[in-house]
């Protein structure tokens, strides 16, 4: 009986060992598959591109000897002349007259005269707000990027309020000649137009200078605005990026 019990116990033990062993095999097999897949993708992503680059470097362009050009002093002189002319044309693109550069990402401006930086400071540019009204009209408040010119200069400007300024306050839009369209004292002492309704002007919200808070115009503090106004002329270039 004991011998039978021992034999049965041994068989059960063998069965359980067998089950554990089978489970271990499956686990190991799964691990191998996963590791293989990871290795495969790692090779393709990280080993193949540099190997490709290495082969390209080794097998670079091999020019046929008949086509190789040996420059003479005359050829040198010719290419130097052409490059020199190109360089002169390129340098001439930077205006000697005053111009201003505005950085809309970090709200900074730089004023140049005679191709030298004479002033820089903080400004405020468009807030990238999309204002949606309840009557299918919308406005996007961003400062346009690119090349512009000063098209107009004015002192003590009075703001002619556009429709969006009423819409964003929940006010009804008045007629074009309504007195409420005109607001003095909010644009500072000077304003310069760059076209399409965009201005460089002053602000009463000086604490927001350096932040993107405007409706598209470029706002500056009083001192910077005065310096910019007195430096730039009609037709002066404005570069906004």
């Amino acid at each position, binding site marked *: 009986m004991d011998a039978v019990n021992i034999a049965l116990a041994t068989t059960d033990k063998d069965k359980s060992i067998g089950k554990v062993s089978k489970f271990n095999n499956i686990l190991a097999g799964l691990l191998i598959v996963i590791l293989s897949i990871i290795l495969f993708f790692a*090779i393709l992503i990280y080993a193949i591109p540099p190997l490709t680059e290495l082969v390209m470097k080794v097998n670079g362009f091999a*020019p046929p000897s008949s086509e190789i050009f040996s420059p003479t002093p005359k050829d040198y002189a010719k*290419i130097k002349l052409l*490059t020199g002319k190109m360089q002169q044309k390129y340098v001439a693109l930077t205006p000697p007259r005053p111009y201003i550069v505005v950085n809309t990402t*970090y709200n900074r401006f730089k004023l140049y005269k005679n191709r030298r930086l004479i002033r820089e400071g903080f400004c405020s540019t468009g807030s990238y707000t999309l204002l949606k*009204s309840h009557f299918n009209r919308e406005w996007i408040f961003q400062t346009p*990027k690119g090349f512009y010119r000063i098209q107009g200069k004015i002192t003590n400007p009075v703001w002619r309020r556009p429709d969006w300024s009423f819409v964003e306050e929940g006010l009804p839009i008045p007629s074009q000649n309504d007195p409420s369209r005109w607001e003095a004292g909010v644009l500072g002492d000077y304003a310069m137009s760059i076209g399409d309704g965009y201005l460089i002007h002053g602000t009463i919200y000086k604490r927001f200078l350096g932040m993107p808070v405007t409706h598209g115009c470029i706002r500056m503090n009083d001192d910077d605005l005065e310096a910019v106004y007195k430096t730039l002329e009609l037709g002066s270039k404005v*570069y906004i*990026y």
Partner: protein
Amino acid sequence: MQKKFLKIFLLACLPIFALALVYFILKLVAVNGAVDRFQKFYSQLDGDDKSNAVFQLTNDSAYNAEQNSYAYYHAQLEAANSDSVVLCINFPDSTATLLIKGVTVHTAKIDRYRVSNFFTKIDQRILYKALSYPFRVERQTSSIPKVPLMIKIAPKDTSEYTPDIVPDTTDVNPVYFLLEAKPGMLVYFYETPKNQSRISFNGVITDIKDRTAILLDDLQRIVHFRKLDYKPSITLRLNRKDAKIIFRAIPNDALIILKLS
């Protein structure tokens, strides 16, 4: 038992290496195809007679330097015809510059860069011709929005009106972006981690994503029995601020000028 699994693992690696070798060979074939396409594209490009006359195939480094400068200035003058912001990457000076009508508006220092050896396989004359014109960007992808638009619904009346709150100008999002330019060139921009010796987790993840995207495209082509595509890549590392400025400044179809050497 361990030896057995090791043996199985090694056996499993054999087909992996074999498949990797096949992929490698297909990739080399793709490179040659890309070289031919690039050369054909720029050979057909009509330049002005002066630029055609200038570029020669030579081993003279001084003459090559002059040719390079000529191509660079020519590209900048071509780009100056556009009113929009142009990106100019100068590898010898390690600078990335924004230009508008030929005027430098912003200069950024490139911390590190890597340029594909693809350009060493191109006929020099054709390469200089290519570099003498700006490349046009066809596609852009990035980790930050191009235009950080905020939508505001207008109040119905004055009772609903709330004055604008101070905008949140905290700058926490990592800046990585990719510009794909014609005729098939990838320019990757990565922000440099604050501590340059530290590897940026976001940078690693972005790098893996970029590489995986290329691999998946290749695998798709293999499955559909199409030729693999190779696009030479240029990778730049810049300060985060500069990377953000550059990405936000350039338009969707931006022009890129390159000076490789």
